[in-house]
């Protein structure tokens, strides 16, 4: 019973101490509120601007409240049509979903080979794949642009998917290999004893155990593809293959036709899918950040 005996806890004293400490903290709350205005104001500005017509925007202070809520419909329709956002969203969704899914699957296969099968110079093959993360993106641009032209896949959906899949492989390989190295090999040894093929072991034992880190890296890579502007500018610069960020950038660049109210509406539309995804899968995003530090 001695081990179970807990020291007397003076709840009243703890409460009093807590109260004192929160009371002392009121000034810091005000400071925090002031500091966070730096983050709130641009969002507030975006929120009021999308409800303004162009004349209304130019006539008033940018931070003033809108006169009515109805202009957002016109803004959205106009931005949607001029920037061809429907096409952009569909393209980006395809690149993100298929590209990231293929990349994470191939990465899981490679991680399986690297951590579950013993062979010589494992580290060399790992470094070969992982070296895809150490170069700045600028160094890929010119060779890819010309190789794509030569092969005839420049400005095609296939070409975009091919590159996005490739560039999203190395990082998940690192994460999944580390994860698999920490996972006991007993289960797959047992399955091999029972005569399961390597692919069967991978498919039925390793994959189901990797769902967590695979989801986390998938979300990370999906977001990367969704946000990418550089490669979609260079490799997919045609109306029907253009990604959403590229559409947004081109729309914004022609700001003589697109007023601030329109380009901010377009920016919001382009961001919404990623925001919704983040809010729905917040836990997985945070897990991914914890694991990867990205």
């Amino acid at each position, binding site marked *: 019973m001695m081990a179970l005996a807990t020291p007397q806890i003076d709840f009243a004293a703890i409460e009093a101490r807590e109260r004192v400490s929160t009371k002392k903290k009121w000034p810091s709350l005000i400071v925090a509120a002031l500091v966070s205005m730096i983050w709130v104001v641009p969002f507030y500005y975006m929120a009021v601007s999308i409800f303004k017509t162009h004349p209304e925007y130019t006539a008033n202070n940018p931070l003033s409240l809108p006169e009515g809520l109805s202009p957002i419909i016109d803004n959205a329709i106009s931005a949607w049509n001029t920037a061809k956002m429907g096409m952009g969203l569909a393209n980006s969704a395809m690149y993100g979903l298929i590209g990231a899914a293929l990349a994470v699957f191939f990465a899981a296969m490679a991680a399986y080979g690297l951590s579950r099968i013993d062979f010589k110079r494992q580290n060399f093959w790992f470094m070969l794949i992982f070296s895809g993360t150490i170069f700045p993106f*600028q160094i890929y641009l010119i060779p890819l642009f010309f190789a794509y032209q030569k092969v005839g896949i420049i400005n095609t959906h296939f070409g975009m998917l091919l590159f996005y899949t490739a560039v999203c492989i190395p990082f998940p390989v690192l994460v999944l290999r580390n994860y698999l190295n920490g996972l006991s090999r007993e289960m797959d040894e047992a399955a091999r004893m029972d005569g399961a093929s390597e692919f069967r072991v991978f498919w039925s034992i390793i994959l189901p155990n990797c769902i967590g880190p695979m989801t986390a890296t998938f979300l990370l890579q999906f977001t990367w593809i969704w*946000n990418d502007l550089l490669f979609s500018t260079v490799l997919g610069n045609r109306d029907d293959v253009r990604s959403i960020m590229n559409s947004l950038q081109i729309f914004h660049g022609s700001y003589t036709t697109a007023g601030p109210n329109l380009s901010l509406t377009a920016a919001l539309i382009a961001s919404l899918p990623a925001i919704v995804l983040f809010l729905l899968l917040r836990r997985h995003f945070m897990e991914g950040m914890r694991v990867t*530090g990205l």
Partner: protein
Amino acid sequence: MEATHISRFGVGDKVKQETDIQLMERIGWHQVKAVEDRAMRRNFWKAFAFMSPAIVLVCGLLLMPVVYNIYFSFTKWKKFAGLDEFAGLSNYAKLPGNPYFDEAFYNTAIWVAASVVFPLAIGFGLAVFLRGVPMGNIFKNIIFLPRILAPTAVAVIWFHVYAPHGVLNSLLGMAAGRPVDIGWLYQDNTVTPAIIATFVWQSVGLVMVLVLLGLSAIPKDPLEAARIDGATSGQVFRHIVMPLLLPTLVVVTILSVLSGFTTFDLLWVMGVGYPGQRTLSLAVYMYFESFQKGAWAFGSAIAVIIGIVVFSVTWIQTVMQSRVDKMTR
């Protein structure tokens, strides 16, 4: 080596029961080695089958381009000719002294310095500060929010915040009591700080969250013990919290530096009206020289320079990390 380890190489179930020594004695060392070598080779091809999609894609679309890019940088390739002419180092020799390059290099150096200092200092400060603030989670979420937006969208928002009749000028006007119209994104001395501020605005939330994760992972016992022994909170921070947090800080710093000076989207979208856009950083200058002027070989050389800067930063990271590992061990 465990006996089961050998059985995995296909020696068979009966052998599994023996210890290594017994096995060696029964069939002899060289035969064991031969069996193991054969198993290793067979295993290699098995593993290679699993790795092949990754290897093919990474080599074909990432590593080959790097090799070609380096090769291009030694040619005279411009517009439609000169790919077969060897230029030696002349592309690199042309870089220093070129006013655009010098300016771009200078701005890139500012980016490196700023993205070492600001995201870390502000993110760290906010993390420590907001831990003691009531309802701190609300503020943490607000500050993290920009991270969810795409850099292109953030750039569009801030382009209009900095616009001559935008938010910043109108706020400054209210404070000054007279209209202000500074072209933040059109002047040589304000454009880079303005875009860096946007970068920091977006990236600070992540640094803050990572530092908070690092702080929450610090065990409470040594902190309590130090307090009981009469350490001031400054001493606790300096001697216990900092060393435990240092690995996180190193990783976070490197991440923000690399993402900082290779940034393209912010500069491309926010600098759209700036006459000297190409000089905003090496990343933009490289894009400008190659895809707008067709100076492919020259652009490749700039890409190699960016690569060298990235490698130096990564190298510093490795050195720092091993130092930190030694310190904390």
